[in-house]
């Protein structure tokens, strides 16, 4: 009996030891002095983060650990609490302009003007340089780094079903609806997809609302917004109902569950690259007020109280070099925020992407919407308003106007609390942006 028991203990200890031994060691040993930690709202998906670490950071001048943030709100509270408690673990912040904005407003970011002057030769567009001031007069709080947008991914098998007169590069929302209906009629399947468990709020904030109302907050419950939602209801009827659980569209595109999908370029690029023969990327559709689209500008900043500023600046310098910018384009589908020369030999996926992006930007009457600005800790709640609106109107079939009124009052409360002024394409406001 004792022997049996001993052998059992041995086996259990063995399993524990195996478990411990099987913990893979960290690939990059953390050199204490030069180690730089990047905290980022971008490249958070598992695939992207892996590529970022293994490819983009491969030749970095310092050993870098890359920490993806759960979401913008977490990012904000985390940085703010670290800076306030003076225990800053992050050396570099990577995020969207909208992520930096509330941090700068609360004085959490260092002034990077000297670095900006040093890096000016990278050739940032003037508009980006202006944005990096984040409303201040002459301080630059972040270095422009990457830009990205959202487009449609289309499986070529859907092309035969295009409605008459519609061109896949110049779709309107009504044509998209007709296209979906056509597919459903002929194949019996709903083949349009939206990342409802993913970035769907950006679709409403940057595409649907600007295209139909040329606004986001001021026009939230307007008549034209109601029209937009009426169109959406028709579109939703030919949308794959599994959309409610999609967080990225490349998976369902690749598996053939959907043929037409809207998403962030970085979340479509795998489909476009892996299945280059079947997949094309095209500009988002246009609405009655124009082609609303959203460009996100990502930058790099340094939080106040961060250790090792020199190494941090070196890392920022490194990441904005042409090689890295082009690598990010090739591998992660974010475009350079610099004048990095785009090579002619991009892979097919990235190439069709760049075409789609350009077409979207150059389209007549395009409305480049901004990522919501000035909401700070209310970001998550603000996005939730859009998500709830989507769910209530499309999934629960509640009456459009009353949902918009309901959610509009919640939104008004949030904007008020955050004190956020209007952002483009809404007309500027003096105080908190009024919900209309």
């Amino acid at each position, binding site marked *: 009996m004792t022997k049996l*028991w001993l052998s059992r203990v041995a086996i259990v200890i063995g399993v524990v030891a195996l478990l411990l031994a099987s913990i893979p060691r960290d690939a990059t040993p953390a050199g204490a002095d030069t180690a730089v930690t990047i905290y980022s709202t971008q490249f958070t998906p598992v695939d992207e983060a892996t590529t970022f670490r293994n490819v983009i950071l491969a030749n970095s001048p310092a050993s870098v650990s890359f920490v993806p943030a759960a979401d913008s709100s977490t990012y904000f509270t985390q940085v703010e609490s670290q800076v306030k408690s003076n225990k800053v673990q992050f050396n570099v912040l990577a995020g969207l302009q909208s992520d930096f904005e509330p941090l700068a407003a609360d004085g959490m970011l260092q002034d990077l003007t000297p670095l900006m002057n040093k890096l000016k030769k990278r050739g940032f567009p003037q508009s980006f340089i202006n944005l990096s001031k984040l409303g201040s007069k002459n301080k630059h709080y972040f270095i422009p780094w990457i830009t990205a947008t959202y487009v449609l991914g289309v499986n070529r098998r859907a092309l035969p079903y295009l409605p008459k007169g519609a061109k896949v590069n110049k779709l309107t929302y009504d044509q998209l609806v007709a296209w979906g209906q056509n597919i459903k009629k002929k194949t019996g*399947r709903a083949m349009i997809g939206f990342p409802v468990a993913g970035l769907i709020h950006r679709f409403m904030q940057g595409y649907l609302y600007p295209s139909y109302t040329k606004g986001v907050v001021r026009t939230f419950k307007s008549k034209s917004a109601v029209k937009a939602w009426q169109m959406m209801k028709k579109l939703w009827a030919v949308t*794959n*109902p599994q959309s409610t*659980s999609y967080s990225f569209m490349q998976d369902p595109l690749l*598996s053939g569950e959907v043929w037409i999908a809207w998403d962030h370029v970085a979340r479509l690029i795998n489909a476009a690259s892996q299945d280059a023969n079947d997949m094309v990327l095209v500009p988002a559709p246009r609405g009655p007020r124009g082609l609303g689209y959203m460009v996100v500008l990502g930058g790099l900043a340094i939080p106040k109280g961060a250790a090792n500023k020199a190494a941090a600046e070196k890392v920022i310098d490194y990441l904005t070099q042409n090689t890295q910018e082009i690598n990010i384009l090739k591998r992660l589908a974010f475009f350079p925020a610099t004048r990095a020369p785009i090579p002619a030999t991009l892979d097919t996926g990235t190439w069709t992407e760049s075409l789609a992006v350009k077409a979207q930007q150059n389209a007549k009457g395009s409305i480049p919407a901004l990522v919501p600005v000035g909401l700070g800790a209310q970001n*998550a709640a603000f996005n939730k308003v859009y998500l*709830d609106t989507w769910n209530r109107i499309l999934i629960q079939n509640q009456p459009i106007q009353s949902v918009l009124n309901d959610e509009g009052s919640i939104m008004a409360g949030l904007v008020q609390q955050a004190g956020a002024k209007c952002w483009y394409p809404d007309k500027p406001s003096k105080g908190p942006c009024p919900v209309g």
Partner: protein
Amino acid sequence: MSSRVETAGAWGEEVTSSPSVPSRRRPRVEAVAPYLLLAPSVFFLSVFVVWPAIQAIHLAFEGPNNTLTSYNFYQMTHEYTFWPSVKNTLIFMVSIIPLEFCLAFSMALIINTGLRGQQFFLYVWTIPLAISDLAAGIVWLSIYTQNGYFNSILHDLGLSQYGYQFLSYQNTFSLFAVCVVAEIWRSTSLVMLILLGGLQGIPREFGEAADVFGATFWQRLWRITLPLLKPSIRVALILRTIFAIQVFAVILALVGSNLPVLGAQAYNWYHSYQNPNIAAAYSIVILVLSVLTTAFYLTVVRNKAEIAGATR
């Protein structure tokens, strides 16, 4: 509770019990010994269970600047997902428990017949006990997702070309069914263990006596086994119900927000929307439901003997 109980201890085989030894009074030091031994645990549980519970209530009523308010509850109940999530949680609970009980009871009875391979069955049947709700959700996701294994089998059988959308929000019934199957798969083991523990505490002679008197299998089950098993059944019911009310990771992994439930709402409010007050309000709803169902079981599933005992 009797002062000594024979259990399958490590040395159970060679230990023969002496006739019941009455409880023994010990000198004064020993009279406080049990309290001293229990004190650390009680203290710990107070700090990490009782105190947070009080805190939760406070948090749920906390407004800006430390004021007290019921606004959190107002906001919670006016969220469009609140009532659906209450409803879903309750339906989930009500549909799981009877199914799971029948299955668990059958499993316990089968093991208790002492059939050959009993050890093997016991091990396999307790495997899900090792599987977290999160992992269970993912496991069933691999089966029920549109291009998952279930649809693959249907396809191979020629029953479906592209597969069914079991996880679509439109198909409420299949959403529920999928979650219920996954949860039953994961948690029946626990119920089986509790029932089996109880079954093994019932002396075989009772059943044999009933056999001798010509009782059929069902009569025996109904008149001998079930009444004697009541304490186990009650514990299993209470634990199981409370866990069902808390259900969250299985559903998050399997159907995401297509099926809002209270646990997932609390998680989302804390984690995604960064609002601990409303999250706490949700947890209070969970607490109230738990207390109500426990009280229900305690009054409904009672032994006559216990009622007699209570008046003693």
